[in-house]
């Protein structure tokens, strides 16, 4: 038992280090991932320790990073691409959705593309435009990709290793405003869950909140506040956005009868819409209230002085819970 205190960012670094040690075909590539260690220092010291053939600083070209990584995957490598910020992934969108996602289907299973595409995402850090977006729905809508996001250091440590080891391409969203959140965990214990499973982050009986990534800690705070007010909220951390572990969500909703889905991304056609539709279909007779969504507004990501209004906070979550309980 080796309990270590690590921030989410440091846990990702430790997880990537393990992945590099475990398989010599793992390579990291992206802008500034080498000597700088990435703009968030997630790849800090990795180039120093593994060399510039394993941790590759690339030209400033996102389609190039993913397209070249895809070619390396065809040669037997397991590249981990870093996209510097959420809003910079769009130039690589075609390579991700048209090439990486489809190669296994296109070749009837003859070719795999074991890429991990890391994207720091979401707001709340006071950044300028294109540095705070939540583009997960674009990728979740594309068959052939797995899309995951950890919400805490232990999951970050294990899920990055599970993603690198997966034979399918994984889009790995990192909740950047949680990079500095710390937790104790045993780095030598195995993961508690397979990559695709959701986690019940807090048990409760009155209503369920489903969240993922950066909003999970927000949902847990909301549940603590609600507990003080006499309401018992269950919080589910999805972890995997594609596939979604609906079994865990359905089981919770059958118990609580009420569901609020929360995410930072714009609400319209976001993951909340899919979850609401699915739960309405599967749990219609167990629901005591309509499924409610709390998300970012349907506006472009706003200037940072406005982001606290845009991002769901505990109060907006509790407001939705109150509406659900009142129904």
């Amino acid at each position, binding site marked *: 038992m080796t309990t270590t205190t690590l921030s989410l960012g440091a846990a990702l670094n430790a997880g990537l280090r393990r992945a590099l040690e475990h398989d010599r075909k793992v390579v990291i590539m992206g802008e500034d991932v080498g000597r700088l260690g990435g703009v968030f220092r997630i790849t800090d010291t990795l180039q120093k320790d593994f060399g510039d053939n394993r941790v590759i600083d690339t030209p400033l070209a996102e389609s190039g990073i993913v*397209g070249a990584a895809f070619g390396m995957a065809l040669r037997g490598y397991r590249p981990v691409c870093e996209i510097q910020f959420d809003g910079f992934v769009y130039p690589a969108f075609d390579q991700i959705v048209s090439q990486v996602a489809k190669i296994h289907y296109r070749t009837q299973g003859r*070719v795999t593309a074991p890429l991990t595409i890391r994207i720091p995402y979401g707001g709340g850090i006071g950044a300028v435009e294109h540095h705070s977006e939540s583009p997960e729905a674009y990728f979740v809508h594309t068959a052939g990709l797995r899309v995951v996001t950890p919400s805490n250091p232990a999951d970050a440590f294990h899920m990055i290793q599970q993603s690198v080891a997966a034979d399918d391409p994984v889009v790995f969203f990192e909740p950047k405003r949680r990079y500095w959140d710390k937790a104790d965990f045993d780095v030598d214990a195995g993961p508690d869950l397979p990559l695709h499973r959701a986690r019940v982050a807090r048990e409760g009986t009155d209503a369920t909140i489903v969240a993922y990534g950066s909003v999970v800690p927000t949902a847990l705070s909301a549940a603590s506040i609600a507990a003080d007010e006499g309401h018992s909220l269950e919080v589910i951390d999805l972890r995997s956005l594609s596939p979604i572990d609906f079994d865990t969500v359905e089981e919770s909703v059958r118990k609580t009868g009420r569901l609020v889905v929360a995410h930072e991304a714009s609400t319209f056609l976001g993951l909340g819409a899919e979850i609401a539709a699915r739960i309405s279909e599967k749990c219609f007779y167990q629901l005591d209230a309509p499924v409610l969504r709390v998300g970012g507004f349907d506006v472009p990501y706003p200037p940072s002085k406005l982001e606290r209004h845009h991002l769901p906070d505990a109060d907006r979550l509790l407001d939705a819970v109150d509406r659900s309980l009142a129904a």
Partner: protein
Amino acid sequence: MVDKIAYPVQLIQPDGLRVFRPDYTSLVRDIRPDQLRDLYEDLVVARRMDVEAVALQRQGELGLWAPLLGQEAAQVGSARALRPDDYAFISYREHAVAYCRGVDPGVMTRMWRGCAHSAWDPSSVNVTNPAIVVGSQGLHATGYAMGAHLDGAEIATIAYFGDGATSQGDLAEALGFSMSFNAPVVFFCQNNQFAISEPVHLQSPVPIAQRAAGYGMPALRVDGNDVLAVLAVTRQATQRAREGSGPTFIEAITYRMGPHTTSDDPTRYRAAAETEIWKARDPIDRMRRLLDREGLLGEEFLARVQATADAVAARLRSGTVEAPDPAPLDLFDHVYSTDHPLIDEEREQYAAYLAGFAGIEEALS
């Protein structure tokens, strides 16, 4: 390798006469009469396959086909420069490249018939399935070459694309990446003068090969209808790659004699007179004239070539018409390499739905 874009390399004139170019003939010095005849056979087989596929499309057996008519020498010459462990990234018109790499003509049409998105196992012949988003494969070839470079493998990777693809950002990024990492890759542009209806001057006001200069990449132009010249320059480029001298850009100047695809109508956008000019530069006629001048064109040889071409075409035809339709539930296969609960659920539900019809059909029969 020239650093300055010079007049296109040519080793055989349209009238079949050899061109005196010691710098390039030295690269094909080993091509003796038998190999010249083999190259001629490849050209004829490529055209015969293509004609057969167009006929199959007209007969309703293929949904679409992208004819290579006129581009046989560019494809055969470059593909025959490759070694078995080299790796080719192709686009959708490179049927002759696929054939030269050993793809079974009997499976070549799977994609065009709609049976599958791809036909063959890329690793069995070291040639990818065709890229349809033009230019994307330039990056894939670059990444593959970077991997080969890291492996210490002395191989070349070649990316095939057209003049239109050179306008795509991905190709520009591929040129940049390959130079930054000294990747052992050959960029092989078949400038066939048209991107569907758009003439090449709409893609670039300067020769396409000049694009490489901005990246510091050596480039040259070659007469793409001269199989021997294409073989020579591709051998030179792949050798540079294998030696660790980095990427090369080749612009093979050729002409798409037919439509872009069987759905296209080139009479809307180009003059018949232009096509006539290029007919006089036909790659097969040129090679035939060379063989004739050099006394290599016996009746027996021609009959043998025709027999081979007909056999390949017959194989392509039988493989096409006999290709079984995929089963409905194949729809759900291979989306992921491991289980995916939502797809498993959809498969199960659709299977049950289809099974319902089976009962009705039984009752009605």
